[in-house]
């Protein structure tokens, strides 16, 4: 059993935002364990703390208290540069609205991930090509995001999240601005990729229509994470 097989373990995570006299508890005592190959949805309304939770799980925010361990690495122990490296090597993000870089072609959006790590080589090009093929957008690899359909952009964004072969795939509101048919398609797609590639998949969303394809649903409200009854 490798360290990756422990998956993601979040223990008693809390985040308090201080501003002057007042403090806001965005996340309180959140614990969560996700195995590789499992796709978990965290559902909650806006302001429930789900994005804060996602940011802490992905090493973008330091928790006020609690721990996040990903593949055996306690990311609370890492300094800023090490956390950036952790994100480069271990995390794939699917951002809200997919947010591809508009002046890069589909393929170059994937290769940007390799460029960040200084590994823009033939191997990277081969991998980008293969991912786009597997996601069914191989034909569109030389197109700019502006000339891709919504569905194609989603698949390119998924490809970008998988480009660095991460352990952890974090998905931020994938269905915003999509109709339910498109939304279903992208969540199904994500679920398939997480399973097939044995990734730890975590998606935050406010959209309850999209939960048919996930393995497990967690609710978040007022910063508290719980399993629905």
């Amino acid at each position, binding site marked *: 059993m490798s360290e990756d097989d422990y998956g993601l373990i979040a223990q008693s995570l809390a985040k308090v935002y201080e501003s002057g006299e007042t403090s806001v508890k965005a996340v309180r005592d959140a614990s969560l364990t996700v195995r590789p190959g499992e796709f978990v949805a965290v559902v909650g309304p806006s302001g429930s703390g789900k994005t804060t939770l996602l940011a802490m799980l992905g090493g973008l925010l330091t928790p006020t208290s609690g721990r996040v361990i990903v593949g055996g690495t306690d990311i609370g122990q890492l300094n800023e540069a090490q956390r950036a*490296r952790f994100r480069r090597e271990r995390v794939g993000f699917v951002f809200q609205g997919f947010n591809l*870089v508009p002046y890069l072609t589909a393929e170059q959006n994937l290769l940007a991930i390799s460029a960040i790590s200084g590994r823009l080589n033939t191997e990277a090009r081969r991998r980008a090509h293969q991912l786009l093929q597997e996601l069914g957008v191989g034909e569109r690899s030389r197109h700019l995001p502006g000339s891709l359909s919504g569905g194609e952009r989603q698949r390119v964004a998924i490809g970008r999240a998988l480009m660095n072969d991460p352990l952890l795939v974090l998905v931020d509101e994938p269905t915003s601005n999509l109709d339910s048919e498109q939304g279903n398609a992208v969540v199904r797609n994500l679920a398939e990729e997480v399973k097939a590639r044995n990734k730890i998949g975590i998606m935050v969303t406010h959209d309850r229509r999209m939960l048919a394809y996930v393995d497990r649903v967690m609710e978040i409200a007022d910063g508290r994470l719980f399993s629905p009854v």
Partner: protein
Amino acid sequence: MLALQEIRRKKLQFGLITLIVGLVVYLLVMIGALGTGLMSAMSGAIDSFNADLVVFSADSNNSFLRSELTSDQQSAVSGVVGSERTGAVGYMVATAQRAAGSEEVALFAFQPGSIAEPAVRSGRPIEGQDEILIDKSLSRSSGLRLGDVVVMRSALKDYEFTVVGEVEGGQFLGLPAAWVGIDQWREMRYPGQGKDAPAASVLLIRDGGSDTRGRVEEVVGNTSVVTKSAAINSIGGVKQQQQVVMTIELFGFVIGALVVGSFFFVLTMQRSYEIAIFKAMGASNWWVFGQLIRQVILVALAGVVLGIPLALLTALAIPSDVPLKVTAGAFLVGGLGITIAALLGAVFSARQVVRVNPVSALGQM
């Protein structure tokens, strides 16, 4: 890859900034060329002296016109540095008379065979009293050619000379220069004084020794010995002229830095969300800033490539009486200077890059 791709997709923005940088480079090269041209018009004849030191008379305030040295002083200088390392130079303003009209000329004199003899580009050195070497600028302005006879008027007396050779790079105080033998000059400058006339205006010394200056001043009384560049700087107006040119150049660099700096500052602000995404995906500040620096260097280089041919074309098109001298130095200063200025300008954006919080790549926090 990314830096270049962005430029390719934002052709208009980057095209405009490159055009502006190109025009600034153009301006800087032209100012530099004008500075060199003015310098050459003011002091080119002095600069072309094959000398390290110039000896003036002590009370002359280092003026070529007022300095007068005696033959005793000349012999004393020869005694210190050796006669093969020194040469007498005479100077006066004369009027060249031509059928077409008259023209003021900076008339220099030298002892043939001494270090003061100018290098002849075409024709031959002077051999007789009635022969003259003229500067290229004089042949341009007066139409004088080799073999022509020119009348030089001084103190109401006319002297006839035959042009035997042409020299290059010599103007003094904006006047075209000409060179004659020193004995002829003594007669023209000090008519009727015979042996009592001063031997020279100044003496040149070709000697790099660090203590030569002090030794000459100590042994030869009543002299002021300065380096050639100090002699040039003491020409009225030269220093001020160069300071004006340098100040304008400095403004050019500052403008370049500000223009490039604000362009990239705005660009960085515009793409702060994009930068947040890159940082969320693990890009370091250095990596993001590195992309920006690449773009800055590309813009600066493209600006140089655009500005330099413009400057060359202008130099060709401009009438030859404008003191404009386009040199490799002007290109180097303009090109290198604008690149450095652009990089300095880009530093303002570094702070902007650092301030982007990768968390903002995720939904509404």
